[in-house]
């Protein structure tokens, strides 16, 4: 057995002459294909092609998995398209060289096998994977505004066929080892205990390459491709606007134009990715990815290991928070005096678990961790207590007074209040420094962000623990000050209210919503208000109107008093059929005012500037992260603060002044704009 070690790669040759090539990227918990990893790999491949071993098995020494993809940080470093293209073509060269090795080559997949990692695996002759649920295989490039760029488009379509391959690349979703085996993306999905044997077997008794069904060739036929492309495009268009997200369309184009001519397609792929990666969308999406990593970093606290969460209040929020925490592995008690409310919690939890877990055993285990608690027995052992009762400061204070003596001294006390300043609640506690806000968003299972609200009295330890807890339930923590509306609701509310004003003015609802979705919002404000619930919008707006200059439009109060609450009551602004808004087509004669979109977006941006002036969050990046993950704000624009910088604050302030002139004082530019203008070079 001979061993040899590079900085990132380790070579181990076994008695049969098989080379086990371990990737263990230096100074990193995760393997990524950074420039230096690739450079070493290329040198190694040179040696292997000169003197081929009996077989080459590539594996990872990281717990996190095989290879999580390219090094995203490098994406932002390209100054020109040409520079990007050179880097990508080098990747192509390396993959081609791996593919052309004369010995059997096997990729041994564990954990995350994503993007460039899967592309590398696809350049091997065989792939074996651990069939543990932790194994996730996919090509998520499209989420970063690009498509596979190391020959992955060609090899993925060759392996799994056009339908599976396109679905995988266009959606960017990751799949299990078993699913990957089913679609022929990998050769064997086996338990960890047989993984090495399976890899060895691929070298010693190479299995027959599995061929695709004949109909796949028909779909790839030159005359058929444009027809099928229309189907793909229609599906993509339902999710992503071509003007905002060019990557999936470029990928479809690539296939339509070049499939069947391997070399040309590989070259075209490199050119296409080089173009995309230096474009605005990809750069902004990479920014969003980095922001996400930044938020994750806020929750790093390895020694903090909470296990038991106690939620008080079995309303929709409390119940969904409890159900989510149990799904993330916590022991959860959910306290309420109403057995019926607890019954609904379990019902909702079950439907969530059925959707996410599918199989009976994990569903049962998760439900077993979620205990309805009429008597508050869970308080005593809880590590985190989350209060989610109705918004009444005195009732909350009384609750805190009642429970504090029963808690362990180190237990984190959290409130899910969306409107009451923390300081107003903290004075009920003997240890006010352990009170923190954990502001979840509805629906809990869908919204990735939690605002970590700190009052003046909140200790740093408490804040850090709250952020760490957010990470442990797979959510992104955003530290915000305890000011009214915090960040997300505060910037969202003026935008929603402006939409309601527009509706009051008689602008067709679908026109309002389209103006927002054209900007890149995932959902229009009217539909969003209906989805959230008009009663909740009204309540938040009323509370915020005490602190900020928001007028609550009369139409909103009308609708609520007539019990038109939105989606949950079947009708709000829209009527709902089978949970979907029925949007009437606007009159063809109708031409919307040219400042419609500006009215919506500028009110939001104006509030973002006000939040920055108030220092609700520490900096502009965090504001962008919060607003993107909390509201879905057009990710390809890189966040509102980033967008303001790009458009130029001076120009936007002018725009606000115009709007104020035409539509009233609510558009008055916040004092913060002048600071921004001064800062802009």
């Amino acid at each position: 057995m001979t061993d040899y070690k590079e900085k990132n790669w380790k070579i181990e040759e076994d008695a049969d002459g098989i080379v086990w090539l371990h990737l263990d990227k230096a100074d990193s918990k995760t393997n990524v294909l950074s420039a230096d990893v690739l450079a070493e790999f290329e040198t190694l491949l040179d040696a292997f092609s000169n003197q081929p071993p009996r077989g080459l098995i590539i594996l990872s020494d990281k717990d996190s998995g095989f290879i999580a993809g390219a090094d995203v940080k490098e994406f932002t470093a390209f100054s020109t398209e040409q520079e990007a293209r050179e880097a990508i073509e080098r990747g192509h060269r390396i993959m081609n060289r791996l593919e052309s090795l004369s010995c059997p080559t096997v990729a041994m997949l564990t954990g995350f096998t994503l993007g460039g990692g899967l592309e590398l695996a696809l350049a091997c002759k065989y792939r074996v994977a651990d069939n543990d649920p932790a194994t996730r295989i996919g090509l998520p490039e499209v989420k970063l505004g690009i498509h596979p760029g190391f020959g992955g488009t060609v090899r993925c379509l060759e392996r799994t066929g056009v339908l599976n391959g396109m679905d995988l690349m266009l959606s960017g979703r990751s799949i299990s080892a078993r699913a990957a085996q089913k679609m022929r993306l990998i050769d064997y999905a086996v338990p960890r205990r047989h993984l090495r044997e399976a890899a060895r077997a691929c070298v010693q008794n190479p299995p027959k390459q599995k061929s695709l069904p004949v109909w796949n060739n028909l779909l790839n036929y030159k005359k058929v491709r444009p027809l099928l492309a229309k189907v793909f495009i229609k599906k993509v268009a339902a999710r992503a606007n071509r003007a905002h997200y060019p990557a999936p369309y470029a990928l479809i184009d690539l296939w339509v134009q070049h499939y069947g001519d391997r070399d040309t397609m590989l070259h075209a792929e490199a050119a296409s990715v080089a173009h995309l990666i230096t474009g605005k969308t990809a750069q902004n999406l990479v920014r969003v990815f980095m922001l996400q990593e930044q938020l994750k970093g806020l929750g790093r606290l390895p020694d903090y290991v909470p296990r038991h969460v106690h939620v008080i209040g079995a309303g929709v929020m409390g119940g969904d928070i409890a159900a989510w925490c149990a799904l993330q592995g916590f022991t959860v008690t959910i306290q309420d005096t109403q057995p019926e409310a607890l019954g609904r919690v379990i019902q909702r939890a079950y439907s969530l678990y059925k959707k996410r877990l599918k199989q009976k055993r994990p569903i049962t285990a998760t439900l077993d961790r979620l205990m309805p608690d009429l008597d508050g027995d869970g308080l005593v052992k809880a590590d985190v207590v989350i209060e989610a009762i109705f918004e009444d400061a005195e009732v909350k204070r009384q609750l805190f007074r009642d429970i504090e003596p029963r808690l362990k001294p180190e237990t984190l006390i959290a409130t899910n209040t969306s409107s009451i300043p923390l300081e107003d609640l903290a004075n009920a506690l003997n240890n006010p420094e352990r009170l923190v806000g954990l502001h979840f968003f509805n629906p809990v299972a869908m919204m990735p962000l939690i605002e970590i609200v700190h009052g003046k009295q909140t200790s740093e330890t408490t804040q850090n623990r709250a952020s760490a807890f957010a990470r442990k339930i797979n959510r992104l923590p955003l530290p915000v000050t305890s000011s009214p509306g915090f960040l997300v609701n505060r910037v969202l509310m003026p935008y929603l209210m402006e939409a309601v004003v527009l509706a009051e003015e008689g602008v067709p609802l679908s026109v309002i919503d389209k103006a927002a979705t054209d900007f890149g919002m995932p959902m229009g404000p009217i539909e969003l208000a209906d989805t959230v619930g008009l009663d909740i919008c009204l309540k938040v707006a009323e509370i915020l109107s005490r602190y900020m200059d928001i007028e609550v439009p009369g139409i909103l109060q009308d609708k609520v008093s007539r019990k038109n609450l939105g989606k949950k009551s079947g009708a709000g602004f829209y009527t709902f059929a089978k949970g979907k808004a029925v949007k009437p087509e606007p009159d063809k004669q109708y031409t919307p005012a040219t400042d419609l979109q500006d009215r919506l977006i500028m009110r939001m941006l104006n509030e973002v500037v006000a939040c920055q002036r108030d220092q609700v969050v520490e900096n502009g990046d965090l504001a962008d992260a919060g607003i993107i993950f909390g509201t879905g704000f057009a990710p390809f624009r890189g966040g509102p603060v980033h967008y303001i910088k790009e458009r130029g604050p001076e120009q936007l302030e002018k725009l606000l002044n115009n709007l104020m002139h035409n539509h009233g004082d609510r558009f008055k530019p916040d004092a913060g704009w002048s600071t921004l203008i001064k800062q802009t070079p």
Partner: protein
Amino acid sequence: MAETRAKKKTTRRTSASRRPVYIVDGSRTPQLKARNKPGPFSSADLAVGCGRPLLARQPFEPSDLDEVIIGCVMPGPDEANIARVIALRLGCGNKVPAWTVQRNCASGMQSLDSAAKDISMGRADLVLAGGVEAMSHAPVLLNEDMVTWLGAWMSARTWPQRLKTLGQLRPGHLKPIIALLRGLTDPVVGLSMGQTAENLAWHFGISRTDMDAYAMRSHQRLAAAQDKGYLSEIEPLFDTRGNVYQQDDGVRRDSSMEQLAKLRPVFDKPFGNVTAGNSAQITDGAALLLLASEAAIKKYDLKVMGQIKDSEWAGLDPAYMGLGPVHAITPLLQRHKLKLNDVDYWEINEAFAAQVLACLKAWEDRDYCRDELGLKSPLGKLDQSRLNVDGGGVSIGHPVGTSGARITLHLLHVLERNNAKTGIASLCIGGGQGGALLIERTTG
């Protein structure tokens, strides 16, 4: 012969090395009547449903238990050694051993006695024990002809073989075996449990009216207990459809003699007297208790409900299994020099109204006491105002594996409520046995 045996038993067990066994806490599910289809909860679901809150309110962690012992007669096909399934699902962790006991209708009491034995011997300090049964989930089985045919079908490799095998399938192959009915039939004497109750009624001259009156009273007592909030040991169950189950749902508040009289005999048609109305209901339910040694009480500062002072198991003619309590309780009383009136409260499981009444009659019956119990004179009259004061199997139900634990737990609550001290819980056991526990409430 009978006399010497009885005497021998009263002088048994005087060893002073026994450690006392305490009952610390307990909970049970509401009992849900079987309604001709599998109920919303499996056996393990039921036990988890009442075990979770029980453990949640303890000052120790579930992993601090020394063992889990569960009585269950018919666990589901996915519940082999159901005690272990329950222990793991309750979060006791990999290291807490668990075992399942089966003594038919007294399985839940056997689990307590087994736990008590381990604690008293010093083998354990903290034990979760109890019983569970989801009778509505009792399996329906294939008959042996069908199993044989399936074997042939599996081994048929060629199409002609398969066709031939298919031709051998007969309608009779499809006749199912209802495991619940088989389970409630004595395999040795061939009588259903109801028929053994008919035997008792015949032997002691218990009329249909006596049985129906007893049954009606059982329902009235349960209804009163529900109204007064006497069943605080119940933990509500939550199903996945948003329903909450908070009370025993077999209670018939409108039960009347006229209605009961209309019911037809179930077991001895057409002349019998035992009906669905004066028999225990078929229900799903679980009951769990926490048993502890003195050391565990001190270690975790546990509040004590009472003590298991002694237990007794007895055997008798399977055709008269309903008299099991008489045979178990009598030596227990003798051993502790107690008379019937010295016991403050009684829980004798109501398998059948006729069966409880027969037990009372047997103690008053000179011949029976002499011939079967070896007593010189009858034991006497048991005061029915101290027996099953909050209803019993007829109104609450009798999930076979559960009842022994349920009546013991409830007896402690009754003693507490009445500031009384001594109680006896007992059951008759299919196959011809009886079991009884002597309980003493810890005061102060």
